[in-house]
């Protein structure tokens, strides 16, 4: 281990292995709480359950935590289609679990590189309408 390059290599390897685990919890939680309706790839179900990839998702980014925790009762307009089915709430999810779900959806399912923090989620949850 005399060569400084070997340290750099070790650091790089450990960083890259962490990378693989980044969305693990989010993936697992999505599988348990979201996938039955929104499907594994986030595509939803016809005109019954909306896809994640949508104008609605983008325009309500600051509401995502509230929607995940409290669900939706009213009809919503998504990609020019009305969806009337109620979205059930997920009251038992902790704030950090919501962070992980949002980051999994954004980065893996929607391939939209962005990072939501615990602080963001806390702020959203303080201002929910529910």
């Amino acid at each position, binding site marked *: 281990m005399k060569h400084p390059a070997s340290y750099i290599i070790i650091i790089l390897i450990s960083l890259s292995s962490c990378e693989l685990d980044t969305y693990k919890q989010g993936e697992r939680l999505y599988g348990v709480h979201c996938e*039955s309706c929104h499907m594994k790839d986030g595509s939803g*179900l016809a005109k019954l359950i909306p896809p994640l990839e949508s104008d609605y998702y983008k325009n309500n980014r600051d509401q995502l935590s509230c929607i995940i925790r409290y669900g939706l009762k009213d009809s919503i307009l998504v990609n020019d289609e009305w969806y009337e089915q109620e979205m059930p709430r997920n009251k038992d999810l902790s704030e950090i679990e919501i962070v992980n779900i949002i980051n999994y959806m954004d980065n893996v399912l929607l391939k939209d590189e962005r990072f939501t923090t615990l602080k963001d989620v806390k702020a959203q949850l303080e201002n929910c309408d529910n």
Partner: protein
Amino acid sequence: MNKYIYWIAILGFLYSCGPEAPTTLPYIGKKKMVDGVEVNHKIPAFEMLNQDSMVINNESLSDYIYVADFFFMSCPSICPKVKKQMMRINEKYADNPKIKLISHTLDPKRDSVDRLKQYATNLGADHDKWYFLRHEDKDVIFELANEYFVVAYEDPDAPGGFDHSGKILLIDQKGHVRSFAEGTEEESVTKFLDDIDLLLKEVSETPG
């Protein structure tokens, strides 16, 4: 050189032992003795309304093979996944007049005919091909589900109030169960599509 012979032998062995594609579908369920004759399990007579308030019974289905599942509209657990797979089946056979799809609701109280109609429309179903059937008495539906080897019962602790399995079943024109898939698993349904093709072939080759 010897090494190669071993490999060839192993490959040949694997090839000969590989599963052969089945050419006919089995009859699923326990055989019964009726008047001294062994008969295959059969879906008993039923009569229900579809989403257009049309009466559908086993006689109206006698010219078709059909694919069946059990669900309820407010189901938050497995139903949407099963419906996604039913949509796949629907799309593949959209132009085949020999096949129908049937989705039985387990929740007649909440799933009225009108609501089923709206649901079917939202799913993009062809109303003449894909029937959403409802019966007033849910016990009749639970019993019928048993005949399809689908477990279904009311359970206040289950998500949405009903517990049931997500099987999709293939029924021939005589009412026998010939194949099934786990409706929550895409791969299981991929194999099931092959079984549907096999049954369609069998039907087209059977006179009358």
